[in-house]
């Protein structure tokens, strides 16, 4: 079909110069007074219309049967293509949106986890630190207690020795003064004196 039309077109294109020549060679071949278009007595005027009806009929047939359906299908194909492309673009956008939301939720989750881990670690460290300081406090308190006990013992020991020293000194003094020793009375007097001073 297309090939036939191609040939027909080329033929009619080639005929154009020939037409011009014919028109030039036949000036006034059917000439008459007035406008040639109104010369309805001229058989060529009517023949022209008959040929026109044939050619126009052929044009209508080719347009209605082949040309216009073809153009319509091309336009329809393009419309379908554009719609399809738009649809796939929208689908891709939906997919991208979903991926973005997923990514955001994953990020939020990771952040929350990290926060929880940090808080846990901090708490643990604080607990450990407080436990350690408590232990240290306890140890220090024990050491202080021990030291105090030691001091008390040493003082008591010193106090015990003091009594001995006082008794011996007092006995020695008494012996020098009166020439004899009464260690029992001296010890009792020392005890009495210590008790009076609150150190017995």
């Amino acid at each position, binding site marked *: 079909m297309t090939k036939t039309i191609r040939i027909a077109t080329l033929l009619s294109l080639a005929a154009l110069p020939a037409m011009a020549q014919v028109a030039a060679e036949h000036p006034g071949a059917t000439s008459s007074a007035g406008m*040639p278009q109104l010369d309805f007595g001229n058989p060529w005027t009517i023949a022209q219309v008959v040929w*026109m*009806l044939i*050619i126009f009929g052929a044009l209508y047939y080719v347009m209605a049967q082949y040309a216009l359906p073809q*153009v319509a299908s091309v336009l329809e194909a393009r419309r379908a293509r554009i719609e399809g492309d738009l649809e796939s673009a929208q689908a891709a956008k939906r997919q991208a949106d979903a991926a973005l939301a997923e990514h955001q939720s994953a990020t939020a989750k990771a952040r929350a986890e990290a926060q929880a881990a940090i808080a846990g670690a901090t708490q643990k460290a604080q607990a450990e630190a407080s436990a350690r300081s408590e232990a240290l406090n306890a140890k220090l308190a024990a050491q202080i207690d021990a030291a105090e006990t030691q001091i008390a013992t040493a003082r008591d020991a010193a106090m015990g020795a003091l009594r001995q020293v006082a008794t011996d000194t007092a006995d020695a003094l008494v012996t020098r003064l009166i020439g004899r020793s009464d260690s029992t009375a001296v010890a009792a007097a020392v005890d009495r004196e210590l008790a009076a001073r609150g150190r017995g």
Partner: protein
Amino acid sequence: MAAEGKAIDALSQFELAPFLGAVGESVRFSQSNAHMLLAFGLITALMLWGTARRAIIPGRLQALAESGYEFIYGIVEGQVGSEGKRYFPFVFSIFMFVLFGNMLGLLPFAFTYTSHIAVTFALAALVFIVVTVVALAIHGTHFFSYFFPEGAPKALAPLIIPIEIISYLSRPISLSVRLFANMVAGHVMLKVFATFVVMIGSAAGVLGLIGAVLPMAMNVALVGFEILVAFLQAYVFAILTSIYLHDAVHLH
């Protein structure tokens, strides 16, 4: 083509001549019909060849074919409505046939078949017949109510009905004369000013050559104007056909 003697011969361009001598003579195939055949070939080539590649992104020829299709489709759909789809090939063929007739006629040495009242009247009569047949096929005898608008006072019927009938019957005349007159006027003007160029240019030496520039410039402007008219008249023919089809389908 040139003027014979001093007379301006603007009408011989419309004379019919046999195409290819004896061959055309034997079947009365004139150069006018040859141009119709050329138009047929060009339109077919544009529409079939142009869109043969079925490109998604159209080339120039395909874009031209598609915009022609959509232009006329828009007119038919806009005027007739969705029922107009059936008549689209007819309106499209009419438009293209008239458009190519007008445009081809502007080429040098070419013949303008739309400058013949017999041709334009035959086309207009074809439109008239198609429209009337469509109207009768759709509405039957109810079609005749078209000649008396609803709600008009009955007393005015003797006046309205003849006016409506006359206006309906005068459609092919106005349709054909409009196209014919536009084409003839344009080509006569072109021929007259072209003759002036030759007459003035060959009359008075250097002065004449300078003087011939004016009608020459006029012709250049006229050709541009005629291209506009060629398109406009084809458009008018197509849109009036669509309006008549609207009346046929919807009755007012």
